[in-house]
């Protein structure tokens, strides 16, 4: 067998494999995930509902979070309070949403963080 030709064939195979790998990796990166958008929408719902409710009841807030984000690690921060749910759960990223409301002539902030 011609040695030169064999080397050329191996080179061609390697370059084609590299090309295939590049095409495949680009395809995988283009995947869109809408779960984060859905999560933000639900977080916004909760913040709006809490702000309208005026009297923030911690037990009710915990129950609301549990019904919208069951078994997810969550943190609620408002008026120097911090409520953490499912603390022990592991996570790789998080989305935090803030809302503002007037109470006793003061602008207050409420923050809801959901860990994924």
């Amino acid at each position, binding site marked *: *067998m*011609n040695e030169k*030709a*064999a080397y*050329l*064939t191996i080179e*061609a*195979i390697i370059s*084609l*494999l590299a*090309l*295939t790998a590049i*095409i*495949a990796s680009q*395809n995988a990166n*283009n*995947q*869109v995930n*809408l779960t984060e*958008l*859905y999560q933000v*929408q*639900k977080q916004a*719902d*909760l913040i*709006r*509902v809490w702000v*309208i*409710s005026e009297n923030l009841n911690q037990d*009710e807030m915990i*129950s*609301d979070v549990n*019904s*919208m984000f069951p078994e997810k690690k969550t943190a609620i921060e408002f008026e120097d309070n911090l409520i953490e749910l499912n603390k022990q759960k592991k996570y790789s990223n998080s989305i935090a949403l803030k809302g503002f409301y007037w109470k006793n002539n003061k602008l207050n902030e409420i923050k809801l963080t959901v860990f994924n």
Partner: protein
Amino acid sequence: MQKGLLFSFDLLFASILWFLMIFLILYSLNQSIESSALEIKKIEFQKNALMQMDSMMKNFDENNALNGIAFENFAKKRIETAKIEPEKLLQVKEKSIKEIKLITKNNSKTLIENNPKSKECLSLQRMGISNNEKTIVRIVVCNE
């Protein structure tokens, strides 16, 4: 003659490998295009369902409840944030809707229940205030 025969084997071997590689590349491209098309269809369905649900929670439409169940304060001429009138969903006749359920602290009520043909369904839930009570609107929508 002998040299020519050797060259032919070289060419044959190289050609087989080339054709095999080209076949594999085309096959994998075809597979990835097919899976991308399916994925795009799925994402489009999810996007439409999410946007429809969001629109429903934020707008007011007296003719089509799926476009808006938000509470419109006619005196103030504006939609009140987070306040909804989910009972309007009883009018919905869309066949792709499998289920519409209202969940409050002490109660759970199924407004609509259908049996669409499609098995690809998505369950979405949003929260609002209805009759001064926190209400979760859960909709199961299927891809027709």
